């Protein structure tokens, strides 16, 4: 990354980029030392969005813990719900009817598409392509309308229950979902022309924010950021959970010799391809949707969780989301800990930023899609 020809060996300017800044996607403090235009060293301070979710989960009863799992990170809400529900179901040994599993897959894939579209919109905004940003937000609205049609809420749906789903999916929903999938596939081609393959964007995103495979390995990075560096790990295919077993997923991966390996451009490509795979999964889930009841537990039943613990892995839109649920038989959970995927991104930042130009800071941060409310819990 450091081609020494660009060194100015001037004395280093320090740039303090505070919590509220137009270049950052979420509040964090960055203190950068820059030699002219090149960033030399970066230090990050987080913790500004610390809400104490895990303490709140220990105070609330079991029934309310799903709503708090939503609030962990709003753009990847369904995944935290899914992880928590799977954990508790494993402790209670509660069978989940196959129809509910398919509905859960549909919900999580819709949430993944809306989270990736939000990341593409952020990258378009950071490179100045405001038109593409608005078009991406318009298409994201269609996905959010689907989530609202199912669960009534656009972001934190609070739709999953222990043992299944809150309500059945109305029959008009499946057709509307297939129709939205078609329009989004067409829109993806439109983004290719306006943003992805326009040479100004390639110029802005090429060799920017380079993450080597070794660094991704060292910080335990998963999800699109790691797939862009060639690190093949996807929980849906390696250890399928909740009905992913009979759905074949071709996980996008940047091949080893890829000329954009690990930079911001590869991350955006991987996210676009993940949207395509999610659409493919949605179609398969729609075909294989069995008939049956949607929840193996009546809403009015009392939730009694015996002593026990479980560790669940779920593929969230930012990577591996782990949930370690511990219950001591009481009415409230003993301990619920989330292993959030963006933590690896935050840890890797001080090693990714040096060597890049100061103008590219917002491109790097938006292409890594760091969910700060996930990191600070």
């Amino acid at each position, binding site marked *: 990354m450091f081609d020494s020809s660009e060194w100015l060996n001037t004395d280093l300017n320090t740039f303090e980029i*505070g*919590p*509220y800044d*137009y270049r950052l996607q*979420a*509040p964090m403090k960055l203190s950068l030392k820059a030699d002219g235009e090149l960033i030399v060293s970066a230090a990050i301070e987080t*913790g*500004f*969005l*610390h*809400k*104490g*979710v895990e*303490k*709140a989960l220990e*105070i*609330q009863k079991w029934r309310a813990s799903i*709503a*708090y799992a939503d*609030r962990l*990170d*709003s*753009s990847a809400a369904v995944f935290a719900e899914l992880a928590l529900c799977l954990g508790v179901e494993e402790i209670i040994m509660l069978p989940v009817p196959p129809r509910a599993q398919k509905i859960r897959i549909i919900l999580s894939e819709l949430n993944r598409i809306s989270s990736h579209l*939000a990341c593409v*919109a952020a990258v378009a905004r950071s490179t100045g392509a405001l038109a593409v940003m*608005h*078009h991406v*937000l*318009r298409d*994201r*609205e269609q996905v*959010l309308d689907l989530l609202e049609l199912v669960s009534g*809420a*656009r*972001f*934190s749906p609070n739709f999953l229950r222990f043992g299944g789903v809150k309500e059945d999916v109305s029959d008009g929903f499946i057709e509307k979902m297939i129709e939205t999938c078609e329009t989004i596939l067409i829109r993806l081609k439109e983004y290719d022309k306006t943003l992805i393959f326009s040479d100004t964007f390639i110029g802005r995103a090429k060799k920017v924010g380079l993450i080597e495979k070794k660094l991704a390995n060292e910080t335990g990075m998963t999800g699109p950021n790691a797939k862009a560096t060639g690190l093949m790990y996807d929980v849906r295919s390696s250890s399928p959970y909740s009905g992913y077993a009979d759905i074949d997923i071709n996980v996008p991966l940047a091949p080893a010799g890829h000329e954009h390996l690990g930079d911001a451009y590869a991350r955006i490509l991987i996210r676009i391809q993940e949207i395509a795979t999610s659409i493919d999964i949605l179609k398969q889930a729609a075909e294989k949707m069995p008939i049956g009841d949607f929840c193996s537990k009546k809403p009015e039943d009392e939730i009694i969780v015996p002593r026990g613990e479980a560790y669940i892995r779920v593929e969230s839109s930012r990577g591996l989301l782990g949930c370690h649920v511990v219950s001591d038989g009481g009415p409230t959970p003993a301990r619920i800990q989330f292993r959030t995927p963006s933590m690896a991104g935050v840890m890797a930042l001080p090693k990714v930023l040096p060597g890049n130009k100061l103008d590219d800071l917002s491109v790097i941060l938006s292409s890594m899609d760091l969910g*700060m*409310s996930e990191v*600070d819990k």
Partner: protein
Amino acid sequence: MAGRKNQAGIGTLQRAITWARKRSLWYIAACHGCCAEELTNVLGCKYDIERFGCIPQIDPKQADLLFVAGPVSYKIAPYLKGLYEEMPFPKWVISVGSCTNCGGAFAPEYSYSVIAGVDKIIPIDIYIPGCPPRPEAIMNGLIKLIEVISGLENGQKDIAIETK
């Protein structure tokens, strides 16, 4: 020069200034966590608030309106207060979502690090309930703020926005 005064005793110059203030509210958004996602959609093209003359600004010195969205932790409270102080008068604050209104899901008995209501550090003009509130609710709060600025008693509607 005693301009012609209307029945509320406000001179034409003052009415012109309030007209200008309510029709061009440049806003800056303090985004923390969940409700911030709704603010990007409100800026987006389906629920566009630039129709009301609201341009997103990148610097508090240029902004008149501050959207506070999402749970405000004690660690970011001084910076939020600093952001509010940097804005020139006259300025207004809209608090989006129940986390900033009253602590919401992270009320004081459930969370130790979220301020129970941002009106403990900065004065707030409009409270928008919801967790997260729908974009229509945020726009309704904005229209309510425009009505408050133009001094209409509650219930009276802003004719220009109603007809559009």
